Structures are given as structure tokens and as C-alpha cells.
């Protein structure tokens, strides 16, 4: 005989996070909404897609894609597909748009996501679109107060690219996965997660998603 009330009693009982955390989150969101309202573009998301800092190495940086089993033959523009981090002989055909001095992500101006989660450091640096990188985006759900997007980032060039996607959205980001986001001016700048998908290989794609709270 099972008594569900007894069986489903929480264990261990967890303590609630401090009220201050909840309050802080609420205030932060409110602040962001106010900021976002100024530049309210609607759901019409303009995905200016941008690659910057094309990588002068071969396919290695996306750990996941380096596995030949995962990636179907479409990704075969790299000669060997070897998951090797050493410098690749093949030089990317398209040059990076932004700062290309430091391939390992050290170019701070070109990489708004680096280091600082909250502040918008340096507002200039509008990313420039690179031909050859495309996005498709699907609204995966939407409700009265917001919506979620899933965005695919496709590298149509023959060189590995660090990717960046800029969305012109009116609202604040409630959630983002498989990317890092920063609000710069009135736009949302998404970049790959270091260690996961900061770059996208030639002829392949990565994806990320975000949920936006509308005001």
C-alpha cells in the first residue's frame, strides 16, 4: 500500500533562496525592461548575422563536431576533419571583419561577452555582417508575456568562424541557452559559449535559443 502524500514528501527539505535574491532578480528585470522599451523593435527580429575573427585553424574548435560520426558528410569542406588543434595549413578565404589579432578570443572590443556579464563595456563596435553566414530562426513558443526563439547559425564559408548574432528585440532576455548574450545599446548580441560553440565550422551549423520577456 503506497501513500503518495507520504512517498512524495520532499527529502531533503530544501531551504528557499534568500528573499533578497528574488527581489534583486525582480528589480534587475524591471530595469532591463525600462531600458529595452526605449528601443522597442518588435518581434520582427532582424538577425544581422555576423562572423568575426575567422579562425586560421581547422575543424577542431567545436569539440562536438570534431566527432566524424556526428557530422554528416555535408561538413566535409575541411580536407581531413582531423580533430587536431595544431595550426591548420588552410587559410580562411574570408577575412574576419572585426579585430583578428588574437585568435583565442582575446580581442576584447570584438567580443562583448567576454568577462563581464552585466556591464556594457564600450558601446561602439557594431558588428558588421559577414557574407556567408546565415541564420534561420523559429519562434518555438510564445505567450502573452514573451516568446522563445531557436536560432540556427550556419557557416556557409569555407573557414571556421567565430559567430555573433545581433537581434533587434524589444524586451529583455529571460533565458538563453547555448550562447552568451549581452545587451549593447538596444540590441541583443549573442555569441557562442566558450568551450561549447564559440565557433562554427565551414559548412556546418550550431544553434542557440533565447526566451524574451515582452513588456
Amino acid at each position: 500500500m503506497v501513500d503518495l502524500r507520504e512517498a512524495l514528501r520532499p527529502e531533503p527539505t530544501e531551504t528557499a533562496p534568500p528573499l533578497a535574491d528574488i527581489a534583486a532578480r525582480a528589480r534587475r528585470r524591471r530595469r532591463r525592461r525600462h531600458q529595452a522599451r526605449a528601443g522597442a523593435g518588435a518581434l520582427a527580429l532582424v538577425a544581422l548575422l555576423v562572423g568575426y575573427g575567422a579562425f586560421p585553424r581547422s575543424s577542431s574548435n567545436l569539440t562536438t563536431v570534431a566527432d566524424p560520426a556526428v557530422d554528416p558528410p555535408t561538413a566535409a569542406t575541411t580536407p581531413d576533419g582531423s580533430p587536431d588543434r595544431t595550426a591548420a595549413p588552410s587559410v580562411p578565404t574570408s577575412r574576419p571583419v572585426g579585430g583578428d589579432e588574437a585568435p583565442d578570443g582575446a580581442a576584447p572590443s570584438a567580443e562583448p561577452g567576454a568577462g563581464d556579464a552585466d556591464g556594457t563595456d564600450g558601446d561602439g563596435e557594431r558588428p558588421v555582417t559577414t557574407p556567408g553566414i546565415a541564420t534561420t530562426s523559429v519562434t518555438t513558443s510564445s505567450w502573452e508575456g514573451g516568446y522563445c526563439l531557436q536560432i540556427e547559425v550556419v557557416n556557409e564559408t569555407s573557414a571556421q568562424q567565430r559567430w555573433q548574432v545581433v537581434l533587434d528585440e524589444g524586451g529583455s532576455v529571460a533565458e538563453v541557452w547555448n550562447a552568451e548574450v549581452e545587451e549593447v545599446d538596444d540590441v541583443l548580441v549573442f555569441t557562442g559559449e566558450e568551450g561549447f560553440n564559440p565557433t562554427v565550422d565551414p559548412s556546418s551549423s550550431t544553434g542557440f535559443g533565447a526566451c524574451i520577456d515582452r513588456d
Partner: protein
Amino acid sequence: MTDERHEPTPGFASWYEGEHPRLLAAMTVAAGEVEMAREATDEAFVRAYERWDTVRRMDAPGGWLYRVALNELRRRHRRQRLERELLRRQHRPPALDGPAPVADPRVWHAVRDLPRRQRSAVALRYVLDLTEREVGETMGISRGAASALLSSARRNLERALGEHVTDEPGRVGIDG
């Protein structure tokens, strides 16, 4: 939309302290995992905090809270499916399970195998102790549908556990 200041609000703190553990326990069962339950629970309270002036005047702030949390969970589930899909394509294994967060691990595993809506109904009914009518209201379905959902859930659990499952009437309702 003039700006309402949401300073720490009268009554919120004690409500929060009382409801948070309850809601978290319920969302854990509804989600079938702890992390997502935590996120949905906290999110529901953040929203309640933002709108406390309105929420506190409701007849059943708890009912509102549970609805918001369940919706939040649904959103996250949907998102997780996408995410899993992506991970699978990219060969990243999903996070591993921790220990069962409820008293009876066997029941925990059986509940996790229930369809999502049955799990939600079980969480509302047996963790939050809502009546069948309230379960229906919270899930946006009729009382009859809630009742049917719960009896399918019990049937499934009985099959999985090989034991009879009791259903005594709920003791409390929404907001006492």
C-alpha cells in the same frame, strides 16, 4: 504604465517562506527533476514579487502562483526538448541524475515515468494537497478531466509499483 515601485512588500516575506518549500516540492514532482523545478519555482516568485500589489489581493495567491510555476515548467520542458535534441546531435550527454529528492525513491522513479500532465496533476494533488477541482482550475482543465488524469496516474503507478495506491481526500485546499 507608470512605474510602481516594488520595494520589499508587506506580507511577501512570510508568504514566500511558507510557500516556497511547498511549491518547490510540488514542482520537483511535476518536473521529475530538481534543477528545473528550482528554476520554475524561483521564477514564479520573482513574478509574484514584481506584481505583489496585485497578487496579494487575489482570492487565492497560491493558485496564481502554482499556475505561473506550472506554465514556467512547461516552457522549460519545451526548451529542454530542443536543447536535448541539440545535444544529441552534438554528442553531449545530458546531465546525470542525482539521488531521489522525495521520501520514497521507488515512487519517485515511477512518477518520473508518467506523462507530463499526469505528473503535474499528481504534484498538485498529493504534494500541494489541492482538491480535484483546484487541480483542474490550476491546470486549466475541468474537474472531471483532472479527476481522470489523476486516476490514470494512479493506475500507471500501481502498475509500475505492483502495489495499491491510496487516495484519501486532500486535507487542505489552495490557501488554507
